[in-house]
């Protein structure tokens, strides 16, 4: 194994911070030589510019480049206008991918939020809260790829009458006495099987954050509601949930973005076959398998468009919170 890269690593670790320090000191030295009234106006910009350059290089430039590529032919040599979008949006398999992303959006986001909330509220009421929460949070430590491999085993299928090696089918055939289900292949269940594996990974995340917010609710409020004669369910829906709403929105928007860029689980578990494809997997396939850069970029732009409303919503909420502060 060659060790050529070590000097570069040292250069990056030492050189980049050194260059930044030099830049700031140098720029400040220049600013201090300017007239006094200009200084406070310029200084913030000096500090922000490195970050702006990074954002421009890593986000804005790729975005514009992608938009441009999406208007080019397959090999990137001819301008074809919106033809890529036309062919993508009339391709039945892409429409299935869009439908699946909507499934992910609704069920993945919804289930993670609901499970997270229920588990947080329930865990709050038992003495062994710590261990329970740790257990549920644990899958978060596993990558989606590893989770995909695990769940492939869980969902594995053998013909009826054979020993079922998959956990789910083993339970399904022995406890419920049903014939085995090909969870990842049967069109009626496979998308939900994938989504369920993702929910398993992410529920812990929603639970931990919801739980933290729950601890922030003053007990007097709940007490007051109970004294006024509210049932536990009423307390939960009328007091707890509204107070948790901002937290749930934050988790929700994170999950929505995650649902839109779902890729790893699908890639590992079904490869997008059997009508389980999603947009991000399709984008990868067009790019890396088919070398169809135009189509791939067009799908990327569609995904970007889908994320924009979420971004706007997030920004609005952010501004709103700043305003009431």
């Amino acid at each position: 194994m060659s060790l050529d890269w070590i000097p570069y690593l040292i250069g990056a670790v030492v050189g980049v911070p050194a260059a930044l320090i030099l830049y700031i000191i140098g720029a400040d030295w220049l600013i201090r030589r300017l007239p006094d009234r200009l200084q406070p106006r310029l200084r913030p910009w000096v500090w922000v510019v490195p970050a702006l350059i990074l954002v421009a290089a890593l986000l804005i430039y790729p975005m514009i480049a992608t938009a441009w590529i999406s208007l080019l032919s397959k090999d990137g040599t001819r301008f074809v206008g919106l033809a890529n979008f036309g062919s993508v949006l009339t391709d039945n398999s892409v429409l299935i991918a869009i439908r699946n992303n909507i499934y992910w959006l609704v069920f993945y986001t919804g289930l993670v939020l609901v499970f997270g909330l229920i588990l947080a509220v329930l865990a709050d009421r038992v003495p062994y809260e710590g261990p329970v929460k740790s257990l549920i949070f644990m899958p978060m430590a596993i990558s989606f790829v590893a989770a995909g491999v695990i769940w492939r085993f869980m969902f594995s299928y053998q013909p009826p009458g054979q020993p079922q090696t998959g956990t789910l089918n083993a339970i399904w055939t022995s406890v419920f006495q049903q014939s085995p289900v090909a969870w990842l292949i049967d069109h009626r269940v496979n998308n939900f099987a994938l989504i369920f594996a993702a929910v398993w990974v992410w529920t812990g995340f929603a639970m931990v954050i919801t739980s933290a917010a729950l601890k922030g609710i003053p007990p007097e409020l709940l007490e007051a509601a109970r004294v006024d004669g509210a049932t536990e369910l009423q307390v939960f829906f009328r007091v707890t949930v509204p107070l948790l709403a901002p937290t749930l929105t934050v988790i929700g928007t994170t999950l929505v973005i995650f649902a839109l860029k779902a890729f790893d689980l699908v890639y590992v578990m079904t490869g997008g076959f059997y009508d389980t494809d999603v947009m991000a997997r399709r984008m990868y396939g067009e790019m890396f398998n088919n070398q169809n850069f135009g189509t791939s970029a067009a799908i990327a732009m569609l995904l970007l468009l889908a994320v924009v409303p979420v971004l706007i919503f997030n920004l609005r909420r952010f501004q709103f919170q700043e305003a009431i502060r």
Partner: protein
Amino acid sequence: MNSSRLGRLFSVTVLFSLLIAACGPSASSSGGKHLDVIATWSGDEQKSFLAMVKPWEDRTGNKIDFESSRDVNALLTTRIQGGNPPDLAGLPGPGQMAQFAKQGKLVALESAVDMSAMNSQYGQNWVKLGTVNGKLVGIFIKASIKGLIYYDPKNITSTGVDFSTPPKTWDELMTDVNTIRQKSGQTPWCIGVENGAASGWPATDWVKDFFLRQAGPTKYETWGAAQEPWNSPEMKTAWQTFGSVVNNPNLTYGGKNYVLSTSFMTAFDPMFQSPPKCYLHHQASFITSFFQHDFPNLQPQTDFNFFGFPDINSQYSGAQVVAGDLFGMFKDSPQARDFIKYLTTPDAQKIWVKRGGAISPNKQVTLDNYPDSQSKQAAKLLLAASPPEFDAGDLQDNALQTAFFQGIVQYIGNPSQLDAILNHLEQLRTSGA
């Protein structure tokens, strides 16, 4: 901060950049050159390739840094786009090779290899398949015979069927298949098509075998050149003939759910269980190393044997689907040229052949190099194939091939969609994908 401290900081930075500049290029010059090589081979196949590489490394003092990936295409695309291609790579297939060649990414090999030796030692087809726009850009380092039908002789005998003279025609085979089913009460065929992003390919091999023997070599070649309509009646018949096997739960073990969810690497397992759950397995010649991986005690001839795919239309008798592993050069260097030249020699190819699992496309690798009578038989089939027809799927560009895989998976799941699937493939072909 005063200017003397600034000056010190500055000189430290300069010193570091000098250090980097000094260390950078000199570090790699010790010993021979390292060549980056990427290919799909893993496990036993990787060991065999490295065994093939070893004598060259010993002779030249250079070193091969081998990287295995099951998604070679994605890896190559990324590295080529990033301006950092490997020196050499095993290419996914002639179709993909042509795409890389047209992008100008592959180095022409005429001046690297010994062309006169290539032309005399390799069959003409093998050289032609590695050539794009008149330039040789890929060489075959091993080959396989597709569409062989494997069976366990002991189990077959117990059903009263005799394969010592293999069935000559598909109809004869189907008669035997029905006998097996009645005598054993089991499904005769084991089929499994799962293989990650390439799921479906084992099923496309069936379609190729049917199409070649039903529609004939000429049509087959037109198909390989992407000139044959996918929705032609001949194509539909080939798919439907496959459907008559795979979609018949009396003939295929476990039904469509088993076929779709089982990896081609383990699909044959029920054939070797006791009692067996199936009796026949259709696969390319490389599958024997997978047999012996799952069941290390299996012996060729006594525990598994094969016969070639039978004829359908006697007019096209002898035609045979073959495939092979291509190697190409992305970064030109004297060492890489020397390496690729070495790979084309019979001495290099003998190494893999002797280790099993490969047939050499080089005619100077004689039959006595093959480790057992079965691999000899497969090598003979390759030499005798008239004509040897290269895998028509591997000849397509990647988008079409992937769509072929996806199409057949969809067909197995839902045979009623056949027309829609074929029309979609045809649309992809004509849109100049």
